[in-house]
């Protein structure tokens, strides 16, 4: 009997619904927390960042035009597809974080449930975040939340899956397109998540996943004039977060600063959804 050759997976980026290698051709070594070699992941460059912004802008048009109800269905579909690959996610999280099987299971379950939770919010956030405003005049006056546009998020560095999903889902639910820079040291669950997204009726370009070093990519994306908001959840260096916030001010982006010691398993509330919507207020004549 002959030994079967290993079929090793090439870990690539996820841009515009496709899985390209980095434009720069670079990769970097990903190891377990104990130092054992795991895989070579693609190391995204600033041009990969730029390409994802183009893809996200295209994806945004389709995603934002979809009905809120439909977006909810698609987010639920992501949970369904992840459920089908539960075993792989558990293995990925265990490899990435060096945690026990039980902990990995708990994290994967929580991540899947998080999608379901946010899926429910898709067609309800307008009722909660919006309002009918009493005004002194013959007008109906109401405020509705609308998506910010293209949002760049840095996923948490420690929590490889639940952290990533907790950052990504609230961006998508209101109709934004997202570019996520995965955890540098623990990127592999993000690649598996990208494979789920590619088969979950999420239009191409709505989510783009980059693996690599946020220190290298983020300054370019923070300055990019076609990006509307930043979520810096995974930036651990306070000075860098400040620099990025300053760069983002050039085109008046919304910026959500990292929160130290965030508990990704806790009930997320609406805070992250609220960070990436714009409020539109309409004055409508009553016709009296």
């Amino acid at each position, binding site marked *: 009997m002959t030994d079967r050759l290993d079929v090793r997976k090439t870990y690539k980026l996820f841009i515009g619904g496709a899985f390209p290698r980095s434009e720069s051709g670079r990769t970097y070594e990903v190891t377990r927390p104990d130092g054992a070699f795991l895989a070579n992941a693609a190391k995204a460059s600033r041009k990969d960042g*730029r390409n994802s*912004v183009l893809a996200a*802008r295209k994806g945004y048009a389709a995603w934002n035009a979809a009905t809120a109800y439909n977006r909810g269905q698609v987010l639920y579909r992501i949970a369904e597809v992840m459920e089908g690959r539960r075993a792989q996610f558990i293995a990925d999280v265990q490899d990435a974080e060096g945690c026990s099987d039980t902990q990995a299971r708990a994290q994967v379950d929580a991540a899947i449930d998080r999608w379901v939770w946010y899926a429910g919010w898709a067609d309800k956030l307008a009722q909660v975040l919006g309002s009918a405003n009493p005004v002194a005049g013959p007008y109906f006056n109401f405020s509705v939340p609308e998506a910010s546009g293209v949002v760049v998020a840095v996923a948490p560095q420690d929590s490889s899956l639940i952290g990533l999903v907790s950052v990504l889902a609230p961006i998508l639910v209101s109709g934004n397109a997202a570019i996520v820079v995965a955890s540098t040291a623990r990127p592999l669950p993000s690649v598996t998540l990208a494979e789920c997204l590619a088969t979950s009726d999420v239009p191409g370009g709505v989510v783009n996943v980059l693996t690599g070093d946020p220190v290298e990519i983020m300054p*370019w994306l923070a*300055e*990019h*004039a*076609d*990006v509307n908001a930043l979520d810096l959840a995974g930036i651990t260096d306070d000075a860098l977060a400040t620099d990025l916030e300053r*760069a983002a001010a*050039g085109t008046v982006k919304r910026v959500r600063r990292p929160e130290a010691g965030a508990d990704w398993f806790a009930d997320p509330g609406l805070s992250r959804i609220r960070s990436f919507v714009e409020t539109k207020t309409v004055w409508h004549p009553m016709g009296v």
Partner: protein
Amino acid sequence: MTLTASLPDADPTALRRFLQGLPGVDEVGAVGRAASLATRSIKTSSKSYAIDLAIRMVDLTTLEGMDTPGKVRALCAKALRPDPTDPSTPSVAAVCVYGDLVDIARAAVGDACHVAAVATAFPSGRASLAVKLQDTADAVAAGADEIDMVIDRGAFLSGDYARVYDEIVAIKEACGSAHLKVILETGELRTLDNVRRASWLAMLAGADFIKTSTGKVSPAATPPVTLVMLEAVRDFQTATGRTVGVKAAGGIRTTKEAVAYLVLVNETVGEQWLTPDLFRFGASSLLNDLLLQRQRMRTGHYSGPDYVTID
């Protein structure tokens, strides 16, 4: 090539013999050559130069059934000052509109920019010669100083080269002092051999420019087709001493593609052609991408579609 001695006149038999006798184009070679030139990396100051040159070469085009005078005026304003945030941005070469909107375009740009009109029953070219001549004369009378005509592809493909030749000669006469660009519509000519024949035919008949496409047929301009046309222009200059321009139109949307065309021009016919007088881009969305890249070079950060006009 030893063409000088045997250039044909309007005699149908001589014309046919000459065009059929042109050497065939190595299609695989042309595609490979164009692809290899497109891999050149143009950076920093060369890129700045290429972007400004490409902007100066743009024929800013709107050829839609729903064009309105307001849209044409907006286009003209953009042609003269493509990027209002940066006055150092050069103007484009020309605006290109349908014949009935020429007077509006001319009034809007004055003498600051060329006005090109598509004529001769654009884009199909299916009308009688009398109608085509009238179409051309109307556009010239309204103030067009460049005429983009389409050849009769039906006649060309059925081998009636003399008919195409006579038509171009007649239109050229109707143009008077206006420059004549002859659209070959290469997407309908099928083979690169035909592209070479049509290029020669147009140049022999008096074209000032040969142009790839109307933009209404896919594929429009492609690098291999443009390469073949540039080679024809080069050979024609060697044979006759007359210099003809080339216009690549349709399907060129990004700065990267535009720069690749400039490389193609430089490597095929030489630096002499790197001027708006001899090479043009027929485009609408290309200009916005050029402006975004220009802003990127100027500000150091990537720009976005919010910072250019929606056309």
